[in-house]
């Protein structure tokens, strides 16, 4: 397991939207026990006590609800169990629809009320299932990487440069700016294609001078991310091995596509390029530019080289 996996990101690592599924579990439990232990009163309450078939079906429904309850309360595969509730709701609504058509008077009124209640529960169930599924997919999208570069500078120099978070855009190509709010917190703005910008707040959660820095985004961002950089003395007096571990979950939808573009087809290559630029800035003072790659190292630019001749005045 990557080191950075130990950095908790509320969006990714929390016991994901746990409250709604367990509430549903308790509801299933109550309904299931009722239908099993007291099918008579439940049948009366719902207005189907005149049908022997309905009275025999109720304990089966009770068993089904107990199954959902056990699944939801166990917390495993919450999305699957939430959808099992939705399926159960659909079945109940079908049965109730048939019952409603056959009844009149006070029974019809009770069946109608029951139908309304079940429809409400169905809506809640669908919502829960969708939410749980989304969180699970966000986890599945999480991108992890570990990339390292050797820099001919001491760990202290490399650490010092990185620790000033406002330096990050000097070598992280997708960042427009980082503003340090205080020694721990910072505000990051990444630039995306077509003027898309993604912003988030981050905090340093572990800081070992000259050794490592660990940070994560604060709750509420649409691009939860965490990272750790370690500065390890390179063997043979060759400077510092700068070892970076990153984890982030790009959101789905249009913003997600924009973020995916930000990191390109090969997110690892982008980070590798960032580290090459970090090395250039530390060893040579700045990002190295050529006429073919006037913005310096970048995969995208490597694919779309301009001819190796001086830039026109308009592009300087």
């Amino acid at each position, binding site marked *: 397991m990557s080191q950075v996996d130990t950095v908790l990101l509320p969006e990714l690592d929390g016991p994901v939207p746990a409250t709604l599924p367990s509430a549903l579990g308790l509801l299933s439990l109550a309904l299931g026990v009722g239908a099993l232990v007291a099918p008579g009163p439940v049948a009366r309450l719902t207005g189907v006590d005149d049908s022997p078939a309905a009275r025999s079906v109720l304990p089966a429904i009770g068993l089904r609800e107990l199954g959902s309850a056990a699944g939801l309360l166990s917390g495993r595969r919450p999305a699957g169990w939430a959808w099992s509730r939705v399926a159960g709701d659909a079945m109940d609504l079908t049965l109730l629809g048939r019952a409603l058509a056959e009844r009149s008077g006070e029974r019809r009124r009770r069946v109608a009320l029951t139908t309304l209640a079940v429809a409400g529960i169905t809506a809640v169930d669908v919502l829960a299932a969708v939410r749980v599924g989304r969180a699970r997919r966000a986890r599945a999208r999480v991108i992890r990487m570990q990339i390292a570069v050797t820099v001919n500078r001491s760990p202290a120099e490399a650490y010092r440069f990185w620790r000033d978070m406002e330096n990050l855009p000097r070598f992280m190509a997708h960042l427009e700016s980082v503003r340090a709010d205080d020694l721990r917190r910072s505000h990051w703005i990444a630039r995306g294609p077509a003027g898309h910008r993604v912003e988030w707040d981050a905090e340093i959660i572990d800081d070992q001078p000259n050794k490592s820095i660990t940070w994560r985004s604060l709750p509420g961002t649409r691009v939860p991310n965490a990272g750790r950089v370690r500065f390890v003395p390179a063997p043979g007096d060759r400077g510092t091995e700068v070892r970076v571990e990153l984890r982030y979950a790009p959101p789905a939808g249009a913003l997600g596509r924009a973020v995916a573009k930000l990191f390109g087809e090969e997110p690892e*290559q982008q980070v590798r390029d960032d580290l090459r630029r970090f090395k250039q800035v530390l*060893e040579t003072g700045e990002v190295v*530019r050529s006429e073919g*790659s006037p913005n310096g190292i970048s995969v995208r630019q490597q694919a779309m080289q301009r001819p*190796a001749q001086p830039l026109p005045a308009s592009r300087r």
Partner: protein
Amino acid sequence: MKATAWMGTDSVKVIDVPDPKIMNARDAIVRISTTAICGSDLHLYHGYIPAMRKGDILGHEFMGEVVEVGPQVRNLAPGDRVVVPFPIACGHCSSCQRGLYSVCENSNPNAGIAEKIMGHSPAGIFGYSHLLGGYAGGQAEYARVPFADVGPVKVPDEISDDQAVMLADVFPTGYMGAEMCDIKPGQVIAVWGAGPVGLLAAASARLLGAERVIVIDRFPYRLRLAEEHIDAETINYEEADVLDTLNEMTAGRGPDACIDAVGLEGHHGNTAMYAYDRAKQAARVETERPFALRQAILACRSGGVVSVVGAYGGFVDKFPMGAFMNRSLIMRTGQCHVQRYTRPLLERIQRGEIDPSFIVSHRMPLCDAPKGYKIFQKKQDDCTKVLLKV
């Protein structure tokens, strides 16, 4: 400004482009006085180096006058007359600090492409494809020189342009080729290729104390330069069997060290062999025609050194690994770490130990660059080295 641009295979043109400007704080802008066409440029001209783009400015051997310096350049000032080493090197990475300037870890902004082909990236080079940085070259009126605080060397007045421009590449390269042979008294050094690099490798082998120097080529006018200026023995490989002759000359030992100053566009007297590699190279199944290299390995004395300064870009076929391994050979190679040699070799010129400009056969104005490429390519008019005067 005017600049020589690569327009496609076998085509260069002098075109108008914007003047260069400072892009990095350690840049300088040089107004070029003399620039040269190199055997390496021929590999580009023939389309054997990947990642060229139409309009790329060529040229990696140039010198001239500093006209502007970036804020971080303190060793140079406008007006200084300098010669510029062809590898672009930062001076601060571990490779540079160990003197391995041509594998500088920072100067190739397109390192990612190079890594895919070569595993790790070498340094950027002026005017030498996007694989090696996408830098505009120096066969032009002006050039931007990155890391001007590391590469360029001031040239004293008594040294002529023709002498000084040899320090940009071919003299240091030939010298490194000879230095890698680790020459001991009494040793016999054989050099494949009597182009500028081979001739200067042979001359350097002399400077470094070789007992005998043997130069191999097929152009009599080039071999004559080796005889007259270096007092070398020569073999015309179209007239004699090279391996037999070398064995005969060394009483069966083989040369103590062999220098390949030919590279990936070797030519072969045996038409069948030549056709084999030529066809594979044309089909891009093989990227090189390594005749000289194969022969150098077979010829070398057991336990000797094969020093490769001829340029290769990709993969070779039929590498005589058996001979190489079983006979305890040593191979040394590299693009030249020019920055390591410029000052000591400048001093050798100043002391009159050598005048490397004996290889220069043609001087013409920049606007004649296309003609220069043509005659150098075809070895017409006894062409050995073309200088373009700006």
